[in-house]
């Protein structure tokens, strides 16, 4: 027999044996059999095949834990309390867990694998989060780097959410990106509009999701969403609401303000400060000015940090924190109780918290979402 053919047959045979061996070892090593997940002390019991990360396992059972990074272990949003012993904190978890969280057995559900029976605690509201199929109804440029994306829901056809909450967009593979991922964006539309949701998405250079939305997503495209999630929403009090937004952080504030107006919650004073550099960075100005005309206790204060000569700007000038401080001292009623609502970059939020606490708002009355 031809020696080349013999060699080929031998190599082929060995490859087949090795492949079968790999499959066999994999099935043995990673086969944890059926395991039980107890959620919230028996409220829900799941029997699942072990081996996968907890985040994925739960999502396959219709329970969706927030994950702004799609399970890569970079956002720290998927924290759950694990009541069972599942081993030490992993190196991939440690940077995103503080000492108190470690003490309380908080773990990243995208990093821990379900290898045996496990008990966990999750916020009750996560039981209502769902996966939605939708279609892009419209995409509008609000500024040179912010798009408004409106998505009509198809299945389920409606969503219930609190104004201020967020959903996760499922980003499909594209170009060199070869796997699905998810990113979180605040809903900018009102909860009264149950059959669609709207987002404001600012392009982040190099960002997987924002690059997709800005450069590849088209009207009539199908898209999946997961949610709703989040604890940034109007608290039911009579305190004045001092809202500060930057960039796409206007999204949840727009939802909250619109919802309040629609529900006739107009007895509260609401101040909305919106910071930008120059006129080309502002958007929705007419919308909020119209709201001022309809709602005498609503005050919209846009401020530019570096207005350009061509802007012919006659409004407030300066960093939004400086404008906020000025209004606290000179224009707001000093005798009313107040709450803070912040959405923007971590730097803006941290700076605004300082201004607010200095002006008498307790830190536990300042609510924020460190990104839209």
């Amino acid at each position: 027999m031809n020696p080349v053919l013999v060699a080929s047959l031998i190599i082929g045979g060995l490859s087949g044996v090795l492949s079968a061996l790999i499959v066999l070892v994999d099935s043995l090593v990673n086969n944890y059999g059926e395991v039980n997940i107890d959620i919230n002390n028996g409220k829900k019991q799941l029997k699942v095949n072990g081996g996968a990360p907890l985040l994925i396992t739960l999502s396959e059972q219709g329970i969706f834990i927030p994950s702004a990074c799609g399970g890569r272990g970079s956002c720290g949003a998927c924290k759950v309390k694990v009541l069972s012993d599942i081993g030490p904190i992993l190196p991939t978890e440690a940077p995103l867990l503080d000492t108190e969280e470690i003490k309380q057995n908080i773990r990243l559900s995208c990093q821990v694998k379900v290898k045996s029976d496990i008990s966990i605690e999750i916020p009750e509201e996560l039981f209502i989060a769902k996966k939605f199929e939708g279609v892009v109804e419209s995409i509008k440029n609000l500024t040179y780097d912010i798009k408004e994306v409106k998505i009509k829901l198809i299945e389920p056809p409606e969503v219930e959410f609190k104004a201020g909450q967020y959903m996760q967009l499922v980003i499909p593979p594209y170009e060199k990106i070869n796997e699905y991922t998810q990113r979180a964006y605040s809903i900018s539309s009102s909860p009264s509009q149950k059959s669609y949701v709207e987002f404001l998405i600012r392009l982040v250079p190099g960002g997987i999701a924002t690059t997709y939305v800005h450069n590849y997503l088209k009207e009539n495209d199908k898209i999946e969403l997961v949610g709703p999630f989040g604890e940034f929403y109007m608290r039911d009090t009579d305190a004045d609401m001092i809202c500060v937004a930057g960039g796409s952080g206007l999204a949840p504030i727009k939802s909250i303000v619109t919802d309040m107006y629609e529900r006739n919650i107009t007895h509260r004073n609401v101040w909305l400060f919106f910071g930008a550099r120059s006129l080309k960075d502002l958007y929705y100005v007419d919308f909020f000015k119209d709201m001022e005309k309809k709602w005498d206790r609503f005050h919209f204060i846009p401020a530019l940090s570096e207005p350009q000569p061509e802007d012919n700007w006659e409004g407030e000038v300066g960093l939004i924190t400086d404008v906020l401080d000025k209004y606290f001292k000179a224009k707001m009623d000093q005798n009313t109780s107040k709450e803070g609502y912040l959405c923007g970059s971590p730097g803006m939020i941290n700076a605004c918290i300082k201004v607010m606490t200095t002006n008498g708002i307790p830190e536990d009355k300042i609510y924020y979402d460190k990104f839209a």
Partner: protein
Amino acid sequence: MKMTEELKKAAENMKPGVITAEGFLGEDERTLADIIESDEEKVRVLNINFYEDLKKIKYLLEKGKEAFDEPVTVDNKWLIKVDEARGHLPCPFEDGIFRKVNLRIRNLKNNEEILLSELSIHLIEKHHFFQGKGSKFRVDPEKLKKVLEE
């Protein structure tokens, strides 16, 4: 420069979609070791004061952060734009996790512009990795010198 196991692992992490949308290597077909060595040589030839430049970059980053994600003019010499996004990015060399913070620096005199991130600053400082040719966050030493000149 030899492709060590550490560099091989880092190169795998630099592929598109692993950490960022477009990865760290762009269209560069050289090995990671060769990319690093080549840029180290370029820094020497250009007589770039490596640590002074990094210090200046960090100064500009802090100034940009003070503008809360809006563009800002710094020292009447640079237009700075910092973007902070939700989440973190791990270093492909697996030695740190960094907030998603991008820094765009434009020199107002010569109009040269460069895009960095907190992660890419770390990559330059600790690993002398300026990213591959064609990468969105590629920091060409020659361009960096022009952007930072006063």
